[in-house]
Each structure stands twice: as structure tokens, then as C-alpha cells.
């Protein structure tokens, strides 16, 4: 049901990765992803793989939570694997039927593609598991603040504020949806049975009140913010200051070292 929706899947802990500055976490994630895509074959993937495992262990987040995330994108992984399986033309032919041939290079390619997606998901999961959605938004805002130079400072702040508000209201709206669904069920609305078209129609009595109350909430929130003299980021200071620490430096050193490893392997292999 609705309450199964997890968004901002933060896992409470105080591991070194949790304590890192959100900005460095975002930047290092980008760095790691870039080098993940710079690998040339399945062998040079070993280095990012080791790095990912190390990060997961340090993060202290239970492995089964990562597996859960991979499960959700399993269809994409399978699809990519199958497509790539038939793409190799070099190497020995393993199976050939009708128009399709599977070669050793195809298998290698499929394994490479699949592991790359899995590593990508794992790395991003570490960020969302160890950083609260609000911290991520703050981090993004701070990282994009260089756009001020181009006169886009307010735009960046607005974007970040919108993200923060959206995240804040997801649980509220989920609760509201459940309430409205119960109320309409009490009036005999059938939300679970029937043909697809009937079920979509049955959602109207839920969606319209939800939309109206979202708009109402938006107005109320806007007024409450104005009452507290919010004027869109200009001259606004933060209560929670972000600070780089030694931890971030170490993390950067490790990630750069592994990236160097990827380059080295790419040259050697």
C-alpha cells in the first residue's frame, strides 16, 4: 500500500560517511561515477568494485538494504544484459541459433554492462542512505552557488527551496491520500476492483480533493513563510553551516587514488 513508498531512504547512523559533508559526498559520487564509465572492460571494473564495497562497509548500512535497491531496477539490468549478450562479434561463438549468435566477447560485454549499472546504483544508494534529503538539497544548493556569477543565484536557491518543500510534504500528502481514500471508500467507492479504466476513473474522487488540498497547503505555507520575512534567499543565512573536515579530505584522497588506479589499469590492459 501507500505507506510502503520510501522516499529519502535515510538510514540513521553515525558512520564516517554519515559524518561527511554532503557537498563532498555529492562531488565524490560524481567523480566515482565518471571513473566508473571510464573503465574499458570488466577487469578494470575491479577497482571501482573494490571501492564500492569499501564504502558500503564503512557506511554501516545493512547490505540487505542495498540489495532491495538493486531489486527495484532488476528489469533494467536484465534488459541491458540481454541486449548486450548479442552484441559481441569477436571471440569464439558459444551459441548460435536463427539470427542470433552469442560470443565470448558478448558475454563479457553483458557482464561488464550489468556490473556497471549495479555499481552505479550501489554508489548512489550510499549517498541517499547516509545523507538526509534536506542535506542533499543543501549540498546541491551550495555546490551550484557558483552560478551566482551569472546572476542565477536566486534561481538556484528557488530550486533548492522547491526540492526541500517537496520532500517535506511527501509524508503529509501520503497521509492525506490515505485519509481521502478511506473517506471515499466509506461512501462506497471501489478503488481496488474493476477493469483498468474503471480503476482510473475511481481515482478521480481521490485525486481532486488531494489536488485542492495541496494548493490550499501551498498558499498557507507561502503565507507562513512571508510572515517570517522570507524573501527568496537574498541575505539569508543558514542555521546549519556546512563545513569540510579532515574526514572529507581522507575520502577525497581515497577516491582519487582509486580513480588513478582505473587510469593505470586502462593503460596497462
Amino acid at each position: 500500500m501507500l505507506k510502503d513508498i520510501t522516499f529519502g531512504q535515510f538510514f540513521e547512523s553515525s558512520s564516517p560517511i554519515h559524518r561527511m559533508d554532503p557537498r563532498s559526498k555529492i562531488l565524490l559520487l560524481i567523480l566515482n561515477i565518471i571513473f566508473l564509465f571510464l573503465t574499458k572492460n570488466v577487469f578494470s571494473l575491479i577497482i571501482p568494485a573494490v571501492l564500492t564495497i569499501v564504502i558500503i562497509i564503512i557506511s554501516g548500512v545493512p547490505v540487505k538494504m542495498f540489495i532491495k535497491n538493486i531489486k527495484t531496477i532488476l528489469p533494467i539490468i536484465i534488459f541491458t544484459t540481454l541486449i548486450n549478450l548479442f552484441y559481441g562479434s569477436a571471440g569464439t561463438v558459444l551459441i548460435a541459433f536463427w539470427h542470433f549468435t552469442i560470443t565470448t566477447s558478448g558475454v563479457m560485454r553483458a557482464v561488464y554492462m550489468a556490473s556497471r549499472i549495479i555499481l552505479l546504483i550501489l554508489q548512489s544508494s550510499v549517498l541517499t542512505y547516509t545523507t538526509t534529503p534536506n542535506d542533499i538539497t543543501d549540498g546541491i544548493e551550495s555546490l551550484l552557488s557558483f552560478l551566482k556569477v551569472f546572476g542565477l543565484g536566486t534561481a538556484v536557491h528557488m530550486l533548492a527551496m522547491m526540492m526541500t518543500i517537496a520532500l517535506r510534504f511527501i509524508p503529509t500528502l501520503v497521509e492525506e491520500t490515505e485519509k481521502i481514500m478511506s473517506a471515499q471508500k466509506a461512501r462506497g467507492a471501489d478503488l481496488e476492483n474493476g477493469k483498468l479504466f474503471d480503476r482510473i476513473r475511481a481515482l478521480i474522487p481521490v485525486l481532486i480533493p488531494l489536488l485542492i488540498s495541496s494548493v490550499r497547503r501551498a498558499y498557507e505555507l507561502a503565507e507562513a513563510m512571508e510572515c517570517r520575512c522570507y524573501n527568496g534567499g537574498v541575505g539569508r543565512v543558514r542555521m546549519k553551516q556546512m563545513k569540510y573536515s579532515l574526514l572529507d579530505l581522507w575520502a577525497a584522497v581515497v577516491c582519487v587514488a582509486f580513480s588513478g588506479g582505473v587510469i593505470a589499469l586502462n593503460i596497462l590492459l
Partner: protein
Amino acid sequence: MSNIIEVKNLCYSYDGDAQIVKDAVHNVSFTVKSGEIIGIIGHTGSGKSTLIQHLNGLLKPASGEIIIDGKNIWDEPKKIKDIRFKVGLVFQYPEYQLFEETVFADIAFGPKNMGISGVDLTKRVEDICDIVGIKKEYLYVSPFDLSGGEKRRVAIAGVMAMQPKVLILDEPIAGLDPEGRKEILKMISKYREQFDATVIIVSHNMEDMAVLADRLIVMNEGNLHMYDTVYNVFTKSEELEGIGLSVPLVTKVLTSLKKKNSGIRTDIFTTDDAVEYLCSIAAGGRYA
């Protein structure tokens, strides 16, 4: 009179991440006679709303039975929809559930789900509007153009239009002005007279409970703390205060007066009765 509602050993708990799983409703049993008005009072989070959502099958009990009109409602889970027409439930702030383009269409939503259509449907909607005092010219207005109190009345009428034998209302007067509150309570009484319905009201307003209810259910931390007549509940003011509730304001006034003069009665719960009582004292000339 026969029992219309029988609740036997009802238990329910919300599943959550909380390590301490506490029952939202724990081992609750009670019966309601046909035609009674029952008030449910209790502190926030005492399980009132959870309890009433069981009575029309929106929540399924973890254990225990709910018997409506002599039939266990979960005997045939496929027919649970029929129970919802028999037991009408009005949620808190029902005006936020309006969605149709006209007042008529919104009130007709429930009856339509029952399979009523055409002339019968029109008649049903118009009948209920007569009872609850929604003017005919309002029927083709958008419900969103109405005032807060009017919206609330339309929303309650939407449940009443299904003509349920049992009408349950969760805080029907919360957040309304005194005039709006009076209107809502009047329409509930009228509906009950017209359809011989049983009414269950959840409320924090002790004064209205004293006026309306025959018996009161007092909920405390998921348990049924008391189930007794209004008199027997409100004479236990200390016990009520112990669980975060109180007696009607007028009773508090009398209790304060009693401190000045021990001859004052404190077992009066409605303003009208108190006025009569105090006037009789004044007429007697004792404190005049």
C-alpha cells in the same frame, strides 16, 4: 430494543517501525441498541478514530468480532461494501473530500455507488437536502463556492444520502463557529428522527455530548475505560480529569460554586438544566 452493533474483544494495532508495538485498540467490547445516540470521548490518540473505522469495515480487526444487525461483518469479506452503506461514516473535516462539480453530484456519489440512478437518485438527494436544510438553488452550485460550514453540511449530507441505519461522525463540529455547530447538530438529530437511525458521535465537546448522547464511551490509551450513561460518566469528574478529559463547563461552574456553598448540586451537565436549577434556587430566595 435489539442490539444493532455488537463489538466483541476487538484488538487492532498499526504496524510500524516502532519497536514497542502497542495496540491502537485493545480488547474493546460493547453493544449499542438500535436508535441510541452514543458519544465517544477520549484524549487524542486514545483509539477513537481507529475504533470507529472498524464499525464500517474500513479496518479489519486483528482479533475480535464486529456484529452489525446480527451479522459478523467479516463473514463475507466480498460484501464489505454493503456494510459501508449500512454504517455511514463521516470523517473528520469531511469538506476536504468534496470533489464533484455540483453539490448535487457530490451528494449523489454515495447513492450512485449503491446502484441507485435516475429519478430515485434525484429524489434521494432532494429528500436529504430537505432534512439537512440545503436549499434547492444550492444543488447546482460548485461545492467549492460554499462557505466552510455549508461545505461541511454538504459533505455530511453525502453520507446521509446513503440512508445508513447507523451514522457515525468523527468530530462533526470541530473548527466551526457556534452557528455552524448548531446547524450540524440539528441536522444530525433530524436525520436520526427521520430514519430511526443509530448515531455515534466522536467529540471533544462535552457540552454537546451532555445534550445529545444517551450513553458515553470513554476511551483511554486504546482501552474502553467507561461505557455508561451521561450521568454516570460526568459525575466522575476526577476520574475523567485523570485521563485528560473533563466534564462540561457548566458542571465546572457548579463545582466552583459548591466550594462557596456545599449545598450546590454538581450533577447537572447542560446549560438549560443549570439555568433552571439556579433559577429555582434564586426563586427559593436562599441566595437571592
